[in-house]
């Protein structure tokens, strides 16, 4: 199993934001994480990406425990992410944002640049080419030179996905990637997610758009009040009584 969570807990004061969550994500799998607002989905992504530490439980990537590692180490092991409230580097261009995302796959010893050892230029040209190819993959190649802060909401989300893909992660964490997008943009994101999974990378997707989740996910974990209330294929989850109750209310 590529990514597995076992009995993960996180409390904020007296609040059990994540309360004993466990599930597994396989290689090349698109795994959906859904649930009502406040169910603990974003907290869970923050735990997996190392922005916060769990109060209990284990998170492992290919059997290696990662829940105590700093976030840059977790990224180096192959987990990158996007953010619900878009966190691009606003003063940098779209291409530069993706270049930052390429940090881990670049080898560019500064001393070579300092003393003009030939070769650094080619490395930089290659890195830029790679960044542009990722922007093309999310349909943003013609806005590469634009400052991130001047892009539209949907464009920023797409650049953020390109930035997260730039290091060539094994697991891509997407936090509501289609929020604020129109239906045709949503369709292109769905196609992109499927393509990423086909290339052997796994996706852990937090999303409110139920249609998209049912369409792209191989498996879905449903959270409510920090606990797993259902886990299974889209078909299984859609018919689950606890899920329907959580979403529609009632017993």
């Amino acid at each position, binding site marked *: 199993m590529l990514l597995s969570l076992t009995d993960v807990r996180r409390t904020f004061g007296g609040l059990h934001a994540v309360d004993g969550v466990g599930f597994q994500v396989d290689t090349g799998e698109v795994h959906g994480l859904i649930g009502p607002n406040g169910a603990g989905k974003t907290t869970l992504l923050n735990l997996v*990406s*190392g*922005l916060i530490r769990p109060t209990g439980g284990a998170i492992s990537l290919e059997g290696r425990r990662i829940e105590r590692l*700093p*976030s*840059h180490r*977790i*990224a*180096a092991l192959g987990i*990158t*992410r996007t*953010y619900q409230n878009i*966190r*691009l*580097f*606003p*003063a*940098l261009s779209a291409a*530069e944002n993706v*270049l*930052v*995302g390429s*940090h*881990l796959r*670049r080898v*560019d010893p*500064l001393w070579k*640049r*300092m003393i003009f050892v030939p070769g650094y230029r080619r490395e*930089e040209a290659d*890195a830029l080419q790679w960044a542009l190819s990722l922007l093309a993959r999310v349909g943003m190649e013609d806005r590469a030179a634009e400052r991130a802060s001047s892009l539209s909401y949907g464009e920023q989300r797409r650049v953020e996905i390109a*930035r997260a893909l730039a*290091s060539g992660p094994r697991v891509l964490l997407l936090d509501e990637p289609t929020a604020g997008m129109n239906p045709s943009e949503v369709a292109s994101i769905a196609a992109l997610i499927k393509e990423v999974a086909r290339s052997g990378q796994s996706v852990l997707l937090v999303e409110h758009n139920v249609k998209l989740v049912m369409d792209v996910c191989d498996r879905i974990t449903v959270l409510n009040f920090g606990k797993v209330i259902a886990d299974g294929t889209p078909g299984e989850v859609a018919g689950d009584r606890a899920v329907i109750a959580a979403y529609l209310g009632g017993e």
Partner: protein
Amino acid sequence: MNGESLRDLWLTYQSTVAFIGLNGLLALSVYTTLSCGQLSLAQAGFMALGSYASAILTLHTSAPFPVVLLAGTLVPAVVAIPLGLPVLRLKGVFLAIATIGFGEVVRIFFVNLDFTNGALGLVAIPQRTGLVAIYLALAGALFILWRIRGSRAGYALEAIREDEPAARTMGIHASAYKLSMVVLGAGFAGLAGALDAHFNFIVAPANYSFGRVVDMLVYAVVGGTTVFYGPVVGAAFLTLLPEVLREVGSRVGLQPGPLRLFVNGLVLLLVILFLPNGIVSLPRRVRRWLETRRAAAHAA
């Protein structure tokens, strides 16, 4: 104009040119840590360490000047490592306060150190610094910052400045980058201190007070911190300003001495209000203003 007054003019002018270079280097040392979003006000302390280390070497050994300068650079750079490790866990104003504390500790340490004559400081340091040394040092610092910009490390620094947690989830080892820049900035400040000590003949604790680091920060802010050469422009402008004011003041019969601080404060205020990216952003601002005017005239 006779030969005598021409030489006097050059002597005054020469020291102003030297101070532009030294202040430029000090402004760059503040900029270096600022470039990854960290406001460190320890630079006067680092400068003091560089000054004292180099002056002691000159006064007590026969070390050649380049070795003295190297020591003045390395001593504060090495001290910056154990200082930076804990202190860089702090953010924003707390980092500023802690680094001010460090600067004061260094100053008070030298006030109480008998070996360096306490508050009186070291005197009669031979003048070994010339304009060439100062401007080579400044050019070296500018070169390093120029080469960092646009490199993988340069983008990592910009990412840390913009959004540190997001940068870390891109795999950027933020604390290592921040520490490197604090060490580099300390080296620049120490080098400036070493050059300064061998230009002014004297090293005394009073030269490294909190006001000194505020001056450095004002140079950087007035010049502009979005590009690496901005702080040097700011240092040149604010170092020349009192000289120009004195000239103008004496013509119209004003005593410019007390006016100096007022004008410095006014310049800082105007830059923050109207040119938040500093003097270096002025040409572009003027060009844009002309373009919109031309467009408006065209439309009318």
